[in-house]
């Protein structure tokens, strides 16, 4: 009898911890994707009747063209489809009333629209969005790369300037892999995984959600929930932007480009250990990528790649600060640069 009570106690103890049992990564992804689809369907159902909005184009050569689109359904992508195929393939980001707007996000009111490409006179926004998208892709590849027994936690995607040479993604791997250092073969296989995703040409579907829904999406990941709270505190409307690519749901600090097919040259260059952090051994995965409209000759690519293997230092400040250049200016050679990677 004492044995039975002990067994029941044990069962109850084990039952309470069963609620927090680790699901396999595939199940976690499926669950996140299901919550995302549900929220997406709910937001679409907010517009049961088709209402029309007027979109004025601000594209060189088509200034002032008026398009009559559907409210809550039409995206800048569908506006581009009304023009020519070149606009569809080359536009990476849209500017709606002067604000950067992901290409697949529905328009909700009459506005002015301009489509941004990589070869504009001022492609700064597009470059930053592209860098963020490549880092998000890197995070997705890392999540998929390891076997089911090993957990992968994406911590954050630091905002890095394009001139620093590589995009980075901070990640914490399973404690069993603390002694693992990536070899060239493993970096190449990660690159191959990324190239497969690029080949599938998946769109990054944006969704603006309130924090409770985002917390539900990331219910299995404590650091992601903290990131959601941080981002919702910073954003003016209190909402958080989620992006889905394939079946992965990601959180991002800014707009991403339209689809993975826009990247052509993509390589994962290095994974540097950063030291012990609050979630375990932090590692920084870095990569280099170029869009298909700006392909580099292989000699130029090799030079840029050797630079991208070096550790990129991210300035440790609050995320609200403007990201300063990680390189000290060459006009001050007397001072030893504080961010020396190799020395």
């Amino acid at each position, binding site marked *: 009898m004492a044995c039975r009570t002990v067994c029941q106690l044990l069962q109850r103890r084990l039952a309470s911890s069963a609620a927090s049992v680790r699901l396999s990564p595939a199940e976690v992804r499926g669950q996140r994707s299901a919550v995302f689809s549900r929220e997406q369907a709910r937001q679409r159902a907010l517009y049961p009747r088709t209402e029309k909005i007027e979109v004025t184009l601000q594209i060189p050569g088509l200034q002032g063209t008026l398009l009559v689109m559907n409210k809550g359904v039409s995206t800048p992508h569908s506006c581009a489809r009304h023009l020519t195929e070149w606009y569809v393939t080359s536009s990476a980001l849209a500017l709606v009333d002067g604000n950067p707007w992901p290409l697949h996000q529905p328009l909700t009111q009459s506005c002015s629209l301009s489509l941004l490409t990589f070869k504009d*006179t001022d492609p700064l926004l597009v*470059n930053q969005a592209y860098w963020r998208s490549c880092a998000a892709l890197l995070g997705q590849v890392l999540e998929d790369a390891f076997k089911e027994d090993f957990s992968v936690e994406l911590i954050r995607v630091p905002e890095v300037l394009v*001139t620093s*040479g590589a995009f980075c993604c901070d990640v914490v791997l399973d404690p069993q892999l603390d002694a693992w250092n990536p070899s060239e073969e493993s970096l190449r296989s990660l690159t191959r995984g990324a190239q497969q995703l690029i080949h599938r040409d998946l769109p990054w579907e944006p969704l603006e959600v309130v924090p409770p829904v985002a917390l539900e999406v990331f219910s299995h990941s404590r650091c992601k929930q903290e990131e959601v709270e941080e981002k919702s505190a910073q954003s003016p409307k209190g909402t958080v932007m989620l992006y889905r690519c394939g079946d992965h749901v990601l959180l991002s600090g800014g707009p991403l480009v339209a689809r993975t097919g826009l990247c052509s040259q993509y390589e994962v260059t290095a994974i540097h250990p950063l030291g012990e952090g609050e979630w375990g051994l932090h590692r920084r995965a870095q990569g280099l990528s*170029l869009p298909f409209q700006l392909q580099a000759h292989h000699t*130029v690519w090799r030079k*840029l790649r050797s*630079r991208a293997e070096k550790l990129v230092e991210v300035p440790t400040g609050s995320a609200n600060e403007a990201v300063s250049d990680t390189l000290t*200016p060459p006009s001050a*050679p007397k001072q030893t640069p504080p961010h020396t990677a190799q020395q």
Partner: protein
Amino acid sequence: MRLNIQMLISHGRVARKMGLGPESRINMLRNILTGLVRHERIETTRGRADEVRFYAEKLIDYAKKGDTDEKAMKMANFWLTEKDLIPKLFKVLAPRFETQPKAYTRMARIPNRENLDKAAMAVLEYKGNPFPPLQTAKRDNELTLINQLLKGYREERAQQAAAKVEA
């Protein structure tokens, strides 16, 4: 000489025939060259522009010797039919090209003439002329992604070179 079929076939012969004969060709080139020195940008047929290029650059080489040089003055006197251009050649054009070793002219092809002959035309100019440029070299915007990456790469190399110089 033996009159044979090879005289009628001109394979591999690079020398152009212009006008009524060799003397006429030199006179024509002289007139075109005078016009070029006066206006610094002229429009002629493609063959004539190509021929004049050689003489225009040789004339600048002679002018660089200075107007005290006997041979240079004789050349300038022969080639420039309008004598008020001789001081312009020695005092304006020669100093302009002091630093350059060669390539003082630029030739750009333009659409065929509108006349019945539809001749292929070209514009010939001395570099450094005061007119707006004929063709701007198409360079990609400095702010594109690849140019920004290369800018960062160049800055890092400059930094490393400076650090090496110090050490």
